[in-house]
């Protein structure tokens, strides 16, 4: 926007040349640094186990081998199961979360609603004050029976107040005359929400929905708090990965359950192959979804 138009009017000055060179270098270095860990993991995942134990990980694999990926597909039950849990939790959580959030946002954006400030504050207050981890944990385990339950992976991050406020400000930008005319036609609130508010805030819904989905996809914290070792079948993908990375025996045990001896497991490259498989979907979808996230960040920034 600060645009190429006016730059062309003048000959390029020496200050701009220097500035451009410095800019290109700084940005290239920083984005290179951001990309490096991804490349290292990818390279490590296709390295030969013995080459790693000899030379360590490196940016370019010393000897290429896809053994780790092959092995992953030989013991697919637990990985696929974790994928299944994550997909289930992400889809359920995003659909319900987006639905509840958008309904509340619609009402709070409604200028006819007399108590909108009070109710907004009721939601907002939870983001500045909380009871802390322990009372929350005890309440959830003792009274809501979160222990070893899939609800524990969905309910805690179902409603995010920031997203509620983003959607609210999005819906406030819909011209009020549209609501008015629908009301004159005799439409009730729920009807207006379904047929006017939702279709007109598609972009906002997409943005918030993607943020909610991302939170579910990346969640491991609730699994760590509420799931026992015995309920490995409920582990979501990220926590499954976390276990493989932090507990040395976890992978060999998983292989053993599929009847593969520990000595055959290329443990080092497999940890990284697992990382690649757990991150893959995000990286593959990222180019298509990036613009929605940029929009979300921008709305969030304007709102403060």
């Amino acid at each position, binding site marked *: 926007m600060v645009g190429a138009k006016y730059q062309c009017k003048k000959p390029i000055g020496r200050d701009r040349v220097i500035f451009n060179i410095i*800019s290109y270098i700084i940005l*290239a270095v920083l984005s290179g640094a951001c990309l490096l*860990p991804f490349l290292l993991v990818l390279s490590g995942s296709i390295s030969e186990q013995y080459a790693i134990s000899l030379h360590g*990980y490196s940016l370019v694999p010393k000897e290429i081998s896809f053994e780790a990926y092959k092995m992953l597909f030989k013991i697919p039950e637990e990985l696929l199961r974790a994928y299944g849990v994550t997909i289930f939790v992400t889809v359920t959580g995003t659909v319900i979360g987006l639905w509840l959030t958008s309904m509340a946002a619609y009402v709070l954006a409604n200028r006819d609603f007399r108590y909108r400030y009070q109710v907004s504050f009721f939601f907002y207050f939870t983001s500045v004050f909380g009871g802390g981890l322990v009372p929350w944990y005890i309440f959830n385990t003792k009274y809501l029976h979160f222990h070893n339950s899939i609800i524990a992976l969905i309910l805690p991050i179902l409603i995010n107040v920031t997203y509620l406020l983003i959607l609210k400000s999005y819906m406030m930008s819909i011209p009020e005359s549209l609501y008015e005319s629908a009301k004159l036609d005799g439409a009730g609130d729920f009807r207006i929400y379904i047929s006017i508010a939702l279709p007109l805030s598609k972009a906002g819904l997409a943005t918030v929905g993607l943020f909610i989905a991302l939170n579910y996809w990346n969640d491991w914290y609730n699994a760590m708090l509420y799931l026992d070792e015995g309920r490995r079948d409920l582990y979501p993908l990220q926590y499954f990965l976390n276990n493989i990375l932090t507990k040395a025996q976890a992978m060999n045990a998983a292989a053993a359950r599929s009847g593969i001896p520990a000595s055959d497991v290329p443990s080092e490259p497999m940890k990284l192959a697992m990382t690649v498989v757990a991150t893959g979907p995000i990286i593959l979808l990222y180019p298509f979804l990036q613009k929605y996230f940029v929009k979300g960040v921008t709305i969030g920034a304007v709102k403060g």
Partner: protein
Amino acid sequence: MKKTRHPFLHDLKENRVKWLMILPAAIVVILMCYIPMGGIVLAFKEFNYHDGIFGSPWVGLKNFEYFFQSGKAWTTTRNTILYNIAFLCVNTLLQITCAILLSELAGKYFKRITQSIMFLPYFISWVVVGAFIYNMFNYEFGAVNSFLRALGMEPLDVYSNKAAWPVILIIVSAFKNVGYGTVMYLASIVGIDGEMFEAADLDGASMWQKIRYITLPCIRPTVVLLFLMAMGTIMKGDFQMFWQVTGNNPMVLDVTDVIDTYVTRSLLNLQEFGMTSAAGLYQSGLSFILVLIANHAVKKVEPDYALF
């Protein structure tokens, strides 16, 4: 008869569809936030599972005493605050620099690609970042050490080196957050009126002068605002980051333990309910006061952006 009723009850009936539409979200917030708030009484109790939150006996301030006498209160508070200040300064500086550079460069594809790459780390989970750390810093196989060995240098053992962690954590925080903030600041730079730059061109202003006298003053309110808000959350450690990046390594806890990781570790490993609730209350109480102060400051600087 109806007119004498309380206006709230009247509204509840009149706008029942609206209230019903808020209800499900409100129930979730009540369950997940408001009811647990009542549990802060635990900080003054000796909790046991059998008697529950309300049946357990009162012990006064004993839990707080225990927390402060353990010496952990000071280390974790110090770490939390210092790390947050360091993250805030380094990240803000990098974010503003990148946003200005990106806004001034003409190369469309270069801009798009670098911006996308820098935003990418924001989307991956902290578990994956933990895998990155393992991949780079593991003593035997880590990429950093294999590089050092290839150069004939001594390998680094970061897991027992206290000095290394502040640097690693600051870099990791920048890695994860620079892209996000850059997008945010870029949006506020793009919002600057282009005519100001054209006028400056006509007056023969140099690049640096335009940045110094137009861009920076124009984004100043955003910077100040975000800075003040960050001050409100300075007592909250980024739990997922500290947990995954440092892996609870006991050798360096002195320099990596923040209040949040300390509370979670004591809760999970020791089932230490009383002292951890006291620590939690200490944290959320101070945080709340800080938010109020930050909000007061925002009100003075930019009244429109005050939170309440």
